[in-house]
């Protein structure tokens, strides 16, 4: 006996009131009617959206910097931190003339997240040393095909003209860290 809520079954004769079942039926209906006048717990989803947390972990985004260059350098820390092994990537070397496209001399030529594997834990975001990957408040749309759930760079990279706001995800501690002059060497200078 794990709880004290169990009831002992007794095989005793039912009384007349119990045998006609009517009081029990009415009692059940009363419960139903009572719920009709209660506040609804469901929402009208596509028209109405539920309020979500500020740091909700939804679909990933690969950020670009203020010049529109991709921040990701394919360092592989997100992939190695991923407990679901959902991330894979192939690196390539930046050629001359692509400085405005890619921020550093190495970039991710292929970057894939398998959304079926992803458990949205946010460890990739935490591991990223370049502030390239973030989880956003957008939901990942469902699909009937497995292949369509492997998101490549076309779906993940942020468009420069359509930036996704991730400022809410940066806590005061993170912002203070970025302002600190000591860590300026992390921010690559575009000189030379």
């Amino acid at each position, binding site marked *: 006996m794990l709880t004290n809520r169990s009831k002992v079954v007794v095989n005793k004769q039912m009384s007349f009131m119990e045998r006609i079942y009517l009081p029990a039926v009415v009692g059940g209906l009363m419960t139903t009617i009572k719920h009709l006048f209660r506040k609804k717990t469901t929402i009208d989803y596509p028209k109405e959206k539920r309020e979500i947390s500020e740091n909700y972990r939804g679909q990933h985004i690969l950020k670009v910097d203020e010049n529109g260059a991709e921040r990701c*350098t*394919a*360092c*592989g*820390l997100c*992939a*190695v931190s991923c407990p679901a*092994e959902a991330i894979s990537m192939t*690196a*390539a*070397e930046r050629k001359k003339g692509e400085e405005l496209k890619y921020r*550093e*001399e*190495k970039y991710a030529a292929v970057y894939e997240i398998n959304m079926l594997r992803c458990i949205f834990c946010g460890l990739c975001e935490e591991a990223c*040393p*370049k502030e390239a990957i973030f989880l956003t408040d957008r939901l990942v749309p469902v699909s009937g095909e497995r292949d369509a759930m492997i998101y490549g760079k076309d779906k993940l990279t942020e468009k420069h003209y359509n930036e996704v706001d991730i400022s809410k995800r940066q806590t005061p501690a993170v912002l203070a860290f970025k302002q600190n*002059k*000591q*860590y300026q*060497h*992390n921010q690559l200078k575009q000189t*030379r």
Partner: protein
Amino acid sequence: MPKVTIDNHEIEVPEGTTILQAARMIGGDIVPPAMCYYSKLKTSGGYCRTCIVKVTQGSAKDPRPMPKPVASCRTFVMDGMVVQNTTSPELLEARKGVVEFLLLNHPLDCPICDQAGECDLQNLSYNHGASATRYEFERRTFEKIDIGTKIKLHMTRCILCYRCVKVADQLTDHRVHGVMNRGDVAEISTYISNAIENDFSGNMIDVCPVGALTDNTFRFKSRVWFSKPMDAHRNCNKCSGKVVLWMKGEEVLRVSARKDKYNEVEEWICNDCRFENKDSKRWTIEGPRHISKDSVISQNHYEHIDMQKLKLDINRQIKFQGGKQIEEHYSRTQFDESSKKALDAAKK
């Protein structure tokens, strides 16, 4: 034979042994880290100061302490010497300062560096360094140079340990590269961008403690922890042919020499083995390379089952069947038979 005490461990060593070598004979955590000293290269050491130790008693004859921390790779032991490494907090503090100096001009571009994950400087700064630098000035920068077609030199990352120079001096007939200029502008360079064409020049990639000299044929191919290290050998008339293949599936991404626990090359390999034979069919693969479990390379690699622990676990389970302990003599006779079966099942 002089007796020396390092961190309360006493050892008797032959005359002319350095403190660092004596510490390595004892082994374990008390071994000072070394960035420039390389036991396989003569006259190496004495540049980086990471191996500093505190000598609290000079010798039995003259028990005065040495006034400053000394470089253990260049200091010979004396009879009755007492040395402190990890047991001295002020020494650890001093080493922290040394690491900060080594990192002064280091670009910290680990995310794009091919050495990341097996880099001595990375490990050193994790284990002994501070989390931040106090340096506020512009770091010195250099253009990256191709040394021949196979080796890439990132001078920005170099810590001037001179290991590659010693490799060229001691392994090859005549060296064509060295350290140019002095002080803050010192740099590794070849004489008027001379290509290094020597059969053993590739070894300078392996001895480089940082990512300054990297394999151009492996450039940005994969992060080291995503490739699987395999011990392999082939018949080579130039070298021993014993190498580590860094594989991804059937593909050989990189070939490197085998390294011991101090990250030093066990046997030098030739450039043919290193650069020209990137085909798994040309190698006899011996099995997975043992990688220390503290290394990021060991992530997601299950090279062997811990047999001792597994045996204990199985033994415990057998003993504890049906909620009660089975008697000792019974379980012992049962153990060998049933654990063998269980181990076979686990292997499959």
